[in-house]
């Protein structure tokens, strides 16, 4: 049992414990105490110093030091500054931001107020996708309740500090998670990124200094203030402090949301917390960082998870998606799946991402269709490298990662697809064949009757065979066969 307590919940500390629609429950668990502490006893500089000392880094994926980001915004002179909460969670399979906003919205509000105090902002904006109606509703309730107690509004805690928050809705474009695209979207412009510099800390929303942090990053702030930076920075590794929330998904027994200290190994997350691979199958790979990340293999299972180790291993932390794959998953198809996503989600602004990802997808498609050539493998790598090297924003700079990491970690799979027209995992339909094992076939004709395209022939009570040219690989015959005579080859 003790072995299972590998999780430490900081960002998720209140999720599942309190009623998110009742501010009193948040207050009963020391809610808004951190804001009070900061306003009554600390200066903005001291607070920023504390955040810097805590070692907290951006949880949205980039891992930029949070305290430093605040300091950069603070240093710019301007009449109006903004703090923004990035709740445009877009990684397929990641939902930690939604969970926090649905389960503990006040922790984000409190942290935004602290951030505003530190950076010199008087206005906060939460950019949230309209597909999160419950999170929006609970956030609205929370904002109303916070205003009633005076945690938002004028002269908070009787100080000179005034601050309030508005909600801005996104249409759910993945690229709007990129902070400059997010700001464009909030301004009513096309949601596409701009070239940095200038960074939002200099020129952000409406051209004013703007500090953008992710939901999970914010959720850590009140705890750091109350427990102290020295408490926080004892958790984690040398360069990655605290915890990270992961959405554990795929072929593990216990899919779910987990919050683990930095430095934990993938093995502990997948096997101890996740309860191992489903149906006793063999672990093959894990994709971290969503479509921007890479896939890691058995060789990485004992690597401590932190920002830098994941990058060195060819993946990234990302916002915390963690998809586990087993022996039935084809790595080429997996890369194709993610490319399909990035092709859809590219904003179209820069050429390498707009056209390159499409061509990358087409090459992968060709390979999974069994039509790839050696030259295609070479093209694939060159194209992936160039897209990474030349794209304008983080989306394009990372979109080839699933391709490059699978090519590096599973070169034999790519080669098998190209040279032998074989998909080990049996996932690429065009490469698989349903074959009737002559000795096992009793000639019962059940398969003949279910085949929708009349691809199976043979005399009654004699071994049957499948015409591969006609077969559409629907698998109905295999399902129907009572003798296990049909297999995939």
């Amino acid at each position, binding site marked *: *049992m003790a072995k*299972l*307590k*590998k*999780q*430490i*919940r*900081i960002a*998720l*500390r*209140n*999720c*599942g*414990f*309190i*009623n*998110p*629609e009742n501010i*009193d*429950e948040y*207050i*009963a*668990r*020391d*809610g*808004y*105490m951190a804001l*009070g*502490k900061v306003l*009554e006893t600390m200066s903005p500089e001291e607070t920023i110093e504390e955040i810097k000392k805590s070692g907290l880094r951006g949880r949205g994926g980039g891992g930029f030091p949070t305290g430093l980001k605040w300091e950069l915004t603070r240093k710019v002179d301007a009449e109006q500054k903004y703090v923004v909460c990035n709740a445009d969670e877009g990684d397929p399979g990641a*939902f930690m931001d*939604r*969970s*926090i906003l*649905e*389960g*503990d919205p006040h922790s984000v509000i409190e942290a935004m107020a602290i951030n505003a105090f530190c950076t010199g902002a008087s206005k906060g904006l939460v950019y949230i996708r309209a597909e*999160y109606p*419950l*999170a929006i509703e609970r956030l609205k309730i929370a904002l109303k*309740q916070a205003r*009633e*107690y*005076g*945690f938002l509004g004028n002269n908070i*805690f*009787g100080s000179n500090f005034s601050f309030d928050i508005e909600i801005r809705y996104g249409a759910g474009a993945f690229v709007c998670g990129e902070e400059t695209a997010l700001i464009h979207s909030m301004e009513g412009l096309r949601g596409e990124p701009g070239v940095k510099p200038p960074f939002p800390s200099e020129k952000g929303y409406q051209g004013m200094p703007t500090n953008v942090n992710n939901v999970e990053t914010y959720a850590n702030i009140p*705890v750091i203030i109350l*427990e102290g930076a020295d408490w926080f920075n004892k958790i984690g590794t040398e360069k990655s402090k605290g915890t990270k929330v992961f959405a554990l*998904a795929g072929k593990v*027994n*216990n*899919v*779910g*949301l*987990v*919050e683990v200290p930095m430095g934990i190994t993938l093995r502990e997350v997948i096997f101890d*917390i996740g309860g191992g691979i489903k149906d006793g199958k063999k672990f093959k790979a894990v994709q971290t960082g969503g479509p921007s990340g890479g896939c890691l293999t058995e060789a990485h299972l004992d690597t401590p998870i932190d920002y830098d180790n994941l990058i060195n291993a060819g993946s990234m932390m990302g916002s915390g998606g963690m998809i586990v794959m087993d022996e039935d998953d084809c790595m080429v198809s997996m890369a194709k799946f993610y490319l399909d996503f990035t092709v859809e989600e590219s904003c179209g602004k820069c050429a390498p991402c707009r056209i390159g990802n499409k061509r990358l997808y087409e090459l992968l498609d060709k390979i999974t269709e069994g039509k790839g050539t050696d030259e295609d493998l070479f093209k694939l790598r060159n194209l992936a490298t160039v897209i990474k090297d030349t794209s304008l924003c983080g989306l394009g700079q990372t979109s080839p990662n699933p391709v490059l990491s699978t090519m590096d970690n599973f070169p034999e799979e790519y080669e098998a697809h190209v040279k032998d027209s074989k998909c080990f995992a049996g996932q690429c339909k065009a490469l698989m064949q349903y074959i009737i094992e002559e000795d096992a076939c009793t000639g019962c004709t059940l398969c003949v009757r279910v085949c929708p395209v009349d691809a199976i022939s043979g005399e009654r009570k004699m071994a049957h065979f499948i015409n591969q040219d006609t077969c559409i690989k629907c698998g109905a015959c295999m399902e129907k066969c009572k003798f296990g005579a049909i297999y995939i080859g």
Partner: protein
Amino acid sequence: MMKIDSVKDLKNLRDKLKSAENLKKATVMVKVSMSTCGIASGARETMDYFINELDNKAIDASVIKTGCMGYCYAEPTIELSKPGKEPVIFGYVDTKRAQEIIDKYIVADEELVGIIPLNFETVN
């Protein structure tokens, strides 16, 4: 609602709220994980069922909605605490399972299999 003007105010309020919460601990408390995913798997039905059934049986209890507990594989999930006992988590709580929990765990005070072990620590 009163406006909080100082940390002192806030501490007073917190302490008041805490003691009120402690009072609640003298009764049965059911927390239903009601985030989007929980609701999609039927948590609203489960919650309504607990409210009605506990009321029907005149059991002194509070049923509270909370956010996600993180056990996606076992939604709907609830956390149940009885006076004097550590809270426990049940997964896959549809109305049938809810009835079973009320009858056996709450009313008859029997042990139930299928409790999800708590697998994390929290800061507070």
